[in-house]
């Protein structure tokens, strides 16, 4: 019989893997996963198919209104490139 906390950890790990699997492979995938899933499901991200411009606005909104930490320029660009390429109207996961 597994202990409750071990079960909980296993299920948390399974869920993390399941969420990660929602994101297509590509440069910036891990950064997107850890930044976004800190607060909300990756399903929130992948159900949207936004243009790079709207993702850009969304990142601003996340910082100004939703308590997301300010990103340094390099990370921000990497994340924006990933979203604008892989979670876009042309390429929806």
């Amino acid at each position, binding site marked *: 019989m597994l202990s409750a906390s071990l079960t909980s950890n296993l299920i948390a790990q399974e869920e993390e893997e399941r969420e990660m699997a929602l994101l297509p492979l590509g440069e910036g995938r891990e950064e997107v996963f850890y930044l976004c899933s800190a607060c909300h499901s990756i399903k929130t991200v992948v159900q949207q198919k936004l243009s790079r411009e709207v993702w850009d606005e969304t990142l601003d909104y996340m910082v100004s209104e939703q*308590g997301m930490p300010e990103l340094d320029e390099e990370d921000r660009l990497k994340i924006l490139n990933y979203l604008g390429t892989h979670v876009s109207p042309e390429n929806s996961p």
Partner: protein
Amino acid sequence: MAKNEHSWNRRNFLMRTGGASAGLIFGMAIPFARNMPASFLPIALAQDASNIPGKVGLTELNDRPLNAETPAHLLDDTITPTNRHFIRNNGNPPEDVDLNSWRLTIDGLVENILSFSIDDLKNQFDVVSYDLLVECGGNGRAFFDPPARGNQWTYGAVACSNWTGVRLSDVLKAAGVKPEAIYTAHESADTHLSGNPDLQPLSRGLPIDKAMDPYNLIAFEQNGEALHPMNGAPLRLVVPGWPGSCSQKWLNRIFLRDQVHDGAKMTDTSYRVPSYKVSPGEKVATEDFQIIEAMPVKSLITHPETMKSVSESMLEVRGHAWAGDTSIKSVDVSHDFGATWQKAELTSPNNAHAWQRWSAQINLPEKGYYEIWAKATDANGISQPFAIDWNPKGYLNNSLHRIAVKRV
């Protein structure tokens, strides 16, 4: 940053079933559990698409925060059962809610600051029940082109349940709204997804005139039972006809202000549309957005389910229609891509702010593919548009609902 834990997700559901993960169920091992894709639930458990306790058949858009809508054909009841009422959460719902210790405070620009238990509300005010329409402002966003950010609701972020509570207007009158107050501000016990205690997930408000509408309830029952935890238990506002976000769930404070409320998701572009018509994809300056008030005229086809085959030529089509702060005058249906229309039978609403039932017998003259379209017209003569009135944030899609039917 730590992941937020909350009780109403798949992970905890599985734990509550008592097995270690999904490998053991109903006292039996599942021989090939390891091979089961991670996103699959055993069919024995998957009676609905989402496995949200107390909900059946909802489509889950997110699990953190939880957002789930109802397929149109499951909204066929005149009064939406609680288990089919959509869920729109902005933050983490409160846990271990205690009905007896819950308090609602009325303060700000009032003569008397008041604080009530739920029993106080029941004892001190008229308790009334109404069928009330609640629709998310972003219902239909999924069809926007170019896409708009936010939950990609299709048709089912709408419901009309029977709600029981006390009138918001009675409670505000008891507190004595000061003449300088122009707006309410609502607060609730849910917490921000970021874990930052200084942020609120949602705090909306109403102009005083709308707040005094006698059909707004401070509700403690849905369909004769305690509220569902994801629909705001133990206490919520129900403000019919306006964006669902006005109907604050887990309500614990209403304060009166001498300015338009500037709480979470009241400002910038949240629950706002441009004050003038824009072309799809157009950039709009933030100061040109205005707060959404009454929702527009709309209808839904709840029978038959789309993409069904029928063998008879006569087909009963039915659904609901509703229109913000007003009522529906007529519903027309077409089976030939809008070339001809026939009037549907239309019932009166059970009370103001309830949706209205409509039905029509349609003749499908020969075998083949048909689309059934429904178009409602409100008491002011305003009808649903064919195309989406595009706006940057994807609100107020009231374009007519179409379903596909194949006669075989």
